[in-house]
């Protein structure tokens, strides 16, 4: 891999990577079982630089912000490289947000350039808020021939001949603005520097190296910190290959492992559980004798890999299982949401280590990761090189709030000095997560201090962001909380959002009101829905400006009610 120490920015590191491995395959893109694109680093460079030149001619300058709203695909990475080449700041947005949310974050980030897939652009142009947009230039990918692009340009035609000029950036300059939340309330735009990414990349590849020939299956959205690092920057600075799938259908994901002989993949718990379910079902279908033999081999593999993984040995002991994953899989990564230890252990016993980790957008991709020396299913691993972690005010069990310091911690929240000051205190980022270090230096997580949930699909959901969905509900007042925030549980899992209702005087809770709640809840994407409601008998405490004092309200709820009072929806 490239030695990243001398580099001051991602653009320069990527530029050298493209020159160093011109003939290696860097990208494969498949739609279901049809391969659409296969590019060498040299091919990638040719397309990306003609785009960079067109951006330059469109007056795209150092520090200009360009947003990308796309599903995982080769054009995402080519566009990002073109932006970095021109010294720009990337604003990767979640393609699953609504058009109104996209417009809100485009506004907040002050992105003037936008690169977006056609179906998402169409939705944005139909949103009422579209008329207020401040975009200067929009590039739309894969637009049908006669589509009305509402003033946008076709990405595929936005090209200029001639060498673009490369714009160097300093390590402390902003590389990306990544939103960790805030679509409904206070936008949290994490300002991440080139140094944050270069240092994170160095730390991660020290433990899990990539090299030419390695194939990484990119399933998590590239706008997400994990895939941006291990599905783009990491593989590229090592000459490896990224495989994109345009669908997340489980059958095609399974097929991709075999078809492309995948080396690494990052998965959210939901996908990992889906794979586990599929494997267990297959094992159940085996005849009694074959199943017995398989179980014996799994037990043997388990005992021989107790101290560390032995991939070669496991492939020999359990050839059918490994063949089903393409035969080259070395590890799967997971993190963000709660992962059941039994699932992690299930895969490890088959000789497929799942490296569980912990991170947050505010501090780069990953703070801790399982180093597999030995594998531990019950922790989120050890701090990566260069990451300092502390547990603040530990209780009698050693559990306290986790704080982090290091070169991967973001610079600040965009345009929010107050929130930045609350979050980064004396150089330490206060994570809002509760944890404890065990005797071996592994971090164990025990829930959250902050009012949010992480879904099985790896999405961070903040209650404030979805409260607008219940605006106008015929009650006196309402508020949404994470259940584990109201009633702290020293465990992860069982995460759900709760709608707290204060009824009008003499108002009875009616079936009609319940119906209204259900209807509004269903307008939210499934992963953002509240799981239950709770009726509270006091007025909500409010500030002078009539904002709900959430902490004080949570305290009151905690005193009066317990979790059993929640009515599930």
């Amino acid at each position, binding site marked *: 891999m490239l030695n990243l120490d001398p580099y001051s920015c991602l653009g320069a590191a990527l530029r050298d990577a493209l020159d160093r491995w011109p003939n290696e395959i860097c990208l494969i893109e498949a739609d279901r079982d049809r391969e659409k694109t296969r590019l060498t680093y040299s091919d990638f460079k040719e397309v990306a630089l003609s785009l960079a030149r067109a951006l330059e001619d469109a007056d795209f300058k150092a520090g200009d912000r360009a947003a990308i709203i796309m*599903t995982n695909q080769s054009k995402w990475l080519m566009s990002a490289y073109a932006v970095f080449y021109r010294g720009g700041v990337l604003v990767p947005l979640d*393609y*699953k947000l609504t058009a109104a949310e996209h417009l809100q974050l485009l506004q907040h980030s002050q992105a003037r350039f936008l690169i977006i897939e056609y*179906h998402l652009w169409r939705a944005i142009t139909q949103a009422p808020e579209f008329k207020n947009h401040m975009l200067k230039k929009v590039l739309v990918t894969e637009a049908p021939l006669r589509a009305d692009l509402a003033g946008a340009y076709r990405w595929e035609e936005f090209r200029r001949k001639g060498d673009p000029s490369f714009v160097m950036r300093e390590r402390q300059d902003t590389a990306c603005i990544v939103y960790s939340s805030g679509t409904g309330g206070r936008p949290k735009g994490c300002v991440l520097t080139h140094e944050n990414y270069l240092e994170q990349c160095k730390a991660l590849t020290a433990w899990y190296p990539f090299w030419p020939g390695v194939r990484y299956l990119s399933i998590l959205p590239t706008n997400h910190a994990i895939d941006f690092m291990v599905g783009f920057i990491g593989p590229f600075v090592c000459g490896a290959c990224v495989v994109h799938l*345009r*669908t*997340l*259908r*489980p*059958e095609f994901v399974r097929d991709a492992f075999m078809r492309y002989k995948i080396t690494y993949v990052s998965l959210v718990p*939901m*996908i990992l559980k*889906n794979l586990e379910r599929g494997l267990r079902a297959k094992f159940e279908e085996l005849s009694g004798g074959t199943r017995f033999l398989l179980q014996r081999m799994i037990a043997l593999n388990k005992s021989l890999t107790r101290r560390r993984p032995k991939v070669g040995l496991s492939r020999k002991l359990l050839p059918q299982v490994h063949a089903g994953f393409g035969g080259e899989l070395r590890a799967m990564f997971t993190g963000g949401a709660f992962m059941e230890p039994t699932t992690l252990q299930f895969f490890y016993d088959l000789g497929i280590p799942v490296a569980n980790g912990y991170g947050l957008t505010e501090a780069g991709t990953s703070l801790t990761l399982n180093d597999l020396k030995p594998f531990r299913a019950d922790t989120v691993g050890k701090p990566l090189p260069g990451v300092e972690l502390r547990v603040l005010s530990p209780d009698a069990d050693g559990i306290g709030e986790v704080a982090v310091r290091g070169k991967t911690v973001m610079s600040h929240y965009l345009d929010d000095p107050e929130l930045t000051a609350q979050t980064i205190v004396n150089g330490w980022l206060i994570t809002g997560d509760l944890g404890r270090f065990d005797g071996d230096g592994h971090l164990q997580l025990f829930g959250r201090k902050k009012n949010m949930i992480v879904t*099985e*699909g790896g999405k961070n959901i903040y209650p404030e962001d979805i409260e607008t969905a219940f605006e106008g509900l015929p009650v006196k007042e309402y508020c949404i909380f994470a259940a584990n925030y109201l009633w702290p549980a020293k465990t992860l899992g069982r995460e759900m959002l709760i709608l707290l209702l204060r009824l009008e005087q003499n108002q009875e809770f009616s079936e009609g009101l319940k119906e209204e709640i259900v209807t509004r809840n*269903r307008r939210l*994407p*499934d*992963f953002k829905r509240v799981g239950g409601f709770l009726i509270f008998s006091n007025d909500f405490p409010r500030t002078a400006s009539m904002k709900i004092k959430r902490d004080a309200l949570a305290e009151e709820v905690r005193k009066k009610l317990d979790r059993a009072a929640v009515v599930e929806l």
Partner: protein
Amino acid sequence: MTAPDETLEQILNLAANHFKVPREKLTPDEDFFKTLGIDSLQALDLLTRLEHHFRVELPDYELQGVSDFRTLANRIQTRL
């Protein structure tokens, strides 16, 4: 071309069969994630089955935000 009501009925039957639940448990407007107790990946699995049945191809994003059979049937109907 299949009539919209017929498309919906066929989807309900296929879903009941796919997830091994009694057909009468499924209604067009209820949240199928909740009724069937499935996650979004299992819903994508069902979509694949429906594609085979109706011989259409729907990108994943067509299912985004869809959680009831009637909307799903409408999306499929436009491609028939």
